[in-house]
């Protein structure tokens, strides 16, 4: 039989262990990869031969990479935005012990290319953790996130479509108009630690490579884990190659690209783009500052005119400081309103990025659309 659809990933479903640790959730992805490595190096000593006779065998590392779309409609419960919101909330939970752990997420929204999410995740390599799996579960007979048959265009709330430029809006410091691309990079800083084993009782019998319960060093008598459990599959893994993983910080920064508009509004023309256009209520240069003095009132909005720690927004230019300095929002077709891109299905902002500082801007003059590339850093609330 030459037909071998079993070789094709399009028939498969990608499932990740949910942050609660008990169930799995399906996601729609463009690509996914699981990578397991073990640190092995050859060591050479003064040993009488140049050949590698000694290997230094280190720790296990298990990481996952995903590329997912952002969707509008029924299957939006399975898209990259849902994945980020689920696992970002888990990373912010001090007591969470479940894997996988999100380590970075890059959200790219562009006018031409739509929206794409690149996610990196981490696990401990323990086979029994199974944080990631591929199944052939029938997609049309399951429910995800409270939506039954999310990809069925008839049963789902709406047929699903890829989120496009008209589904997003952004306000990033002074960049409000003509935004062609916005990229938000979330980094969850993690640390792996390996500890010297305490007193051991030998390898477990039911789980390969998993250390058995150990003597609690604080109690020194009974055979228990430090969390009090008696499980041989203890989560602390003293004396194994599987690491302790902790979250040490979350940072959000990003970059973008906006078109630059230069319009000589002076009458008669003065052949520069340094003035404020009263009739259009905007500067002659949009998304770039070509003035030598910040404009007539010293209130133009170029990066170099920012005071230390000050967020310069178009709202501030208009004298209204109540407007958010940063916003990246997606259209909610169900409620017909804009939602924070980081608002979860419960209506909670997993992270609040209402303030940002633009930290670089590069003005590019080319034959074609002039652009300003910019970078920003957010306060994370």
């Amino acid at each position, binding site marked *: 039989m030459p037909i071998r659809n079993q070789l094709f990933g*399009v028939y498969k479903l*990608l499932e990740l262990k949910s942050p609660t640790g008990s169930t799995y959730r399906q996601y729609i992805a463009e690509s996914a990869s699981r990578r397991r490595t073990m640190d092995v190096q050859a060591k050479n000593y003064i040993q009488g031969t140049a050949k590698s006779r000694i290997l230094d065998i280190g720790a296990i590392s298990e990481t996952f990479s995903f590329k997912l779309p952002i969707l509008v409609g029924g299957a939006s419960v399975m898209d990259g935005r849902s994945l980020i919101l689920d696992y970002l909330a888990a990373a912010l939970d001090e007591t969470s012990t479940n894997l996988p752990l999100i380590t970075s997420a890059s959200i790219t*929204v562009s006018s031409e290319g739509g929206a794409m999410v690149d996610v990196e995740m981490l696990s401990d390599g323990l086979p029994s953790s199974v944080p990631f799996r591929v199944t052939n579960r029938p997609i049309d007979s399951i429910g995800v996130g409270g939506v039954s048959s999310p990809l069925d265009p008839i049963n789902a709330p709406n047929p699903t479509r890829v989120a*496009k*430029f*008209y*589904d997003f809006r952004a306000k990033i410091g002074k960049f*409000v108009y003509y935004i062609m691309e916005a990229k938000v990079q979330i980094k969850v800083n993690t640390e792996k630690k390996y500890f010297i084993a305490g007193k051991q009782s030998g390898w477990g019998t039911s789980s390969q490579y998993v250390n058995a319960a150990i003597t609690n060093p604080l109690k020194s008598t009974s055979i228990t884990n430090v969390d009090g459990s008696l499980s041989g599959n203890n989560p602390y893994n003293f004396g194994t190659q599987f690491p302790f993983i902790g979250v040490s910080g979350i940072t959000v920064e990003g970059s973008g690209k906006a078109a630059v508009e230069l319009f000589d509004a002076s009458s008669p023309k003065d052949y520069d783009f340094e003035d404020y256009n009263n009739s259009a209520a905007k500067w002659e240069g949009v998304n770039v500052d070509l003035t030598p003095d910040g404009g007539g009132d010293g209130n133009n909005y170029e990066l170099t005119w920012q005071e230390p720690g000050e967020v310069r927004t178009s709202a501030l230019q208009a004298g209204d400081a109540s407007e958010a300095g940063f916003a990246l929002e997606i259209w909610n077709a169900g409620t017909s309103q804009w939602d924070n891109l980081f608002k979860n299905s419960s209506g909670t902002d997993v992270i609040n990025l209402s303030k940002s500082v633009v930290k670089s801007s590069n003005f590019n003059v080319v034959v074609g659309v002039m652009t300003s590339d910019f970078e920003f850093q957010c306060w994370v609330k």
Partner: protein
Amino acid sequence: MGRRKKSSTVFQAMAEPTVKAPGLNSRMEPATGLLVRSVRINNNYLLVESCDIYQKQDIDVKFYIQGGPRSSVADIGKKWVEGQIVFKLSVDRSGEILTPIRDILLNAEKPISELTLDTNHTLSHVNITGEDGGFDNNSLVSLDGLVVKSLTISVSPEKDVTINCSLYGTIDLRTPGDYVTPEDIPISRAISWADCDASRFSSAMRTVSSMEFKIENSIQDLIFLTHYNEQRNDQIYGFGVKETRWQGSYEEFLRLGMEVDNYAHAGWKVGENIIFDFNAVRFLVRVPLFFKSEQPISSKLLVRKSKFLSLTSPDQNNAQGKLIYFAEDVI
């Protein structure tokens, strides 16, 4: 005339005609554009050979790791207006070029403002397609944000001067279309081969057997994320013209007595002043940049093909940068 076949019902059963011919030929009433082959350019009537201008949109489906190969996810992108009209170069009773043709030519030469095109059969959908798909909510609106993307004016013996014009743009103001075929159509005359002439400094070009001039405007459309305080829209935000390329070509048949200097070895020729005279409008290229001539050999009449680009001032507001001259303009 044959007698009508007697039938118990007024209508024929579907099975009979569909077996003989695909489709609904037996029941259709053929439509033709012969009676409505006019459009309005900037509110002025223009008779056209054809009008193929429509709203277009990037629509596709996407496939992911999704549990099966069938398409479940739509990809609905930007929306714009594009197409072409074909018409004869015509003049009115006084020999003046018709106003809509003048507007089109000027826009082709200097595309810094929009043309408006009205028809009575080009429907548009101005809501967001991704949220309002289907067949309803179409509107007859003015296509009011168009520029000339390319224009080709050509003529050959025993034929009229034909202009093929590609337009590109969007719908700006969403003005309801109110196209009405005018009751009084102005009398016009199509310019033919007999009205035309060509010349250049080095030659009277008496053996030209066809000529063509082409204007190509390189257009880049713009789409952005939704502006923060504005309404969502899946149409392109606008567009800009990056490059304007003017190019002419002509064919000459070879015979004894023609000038010697007509085999271009390529390169620019300052002051050559090539004029393609289409009677009501002339195209003047002061500094042509020639390609190498092509001289195919065949068993038929030998015809030499010459082609050139225009070198001109980037700022067109002076004589050095001007291309199109109407009857009232002095070269």
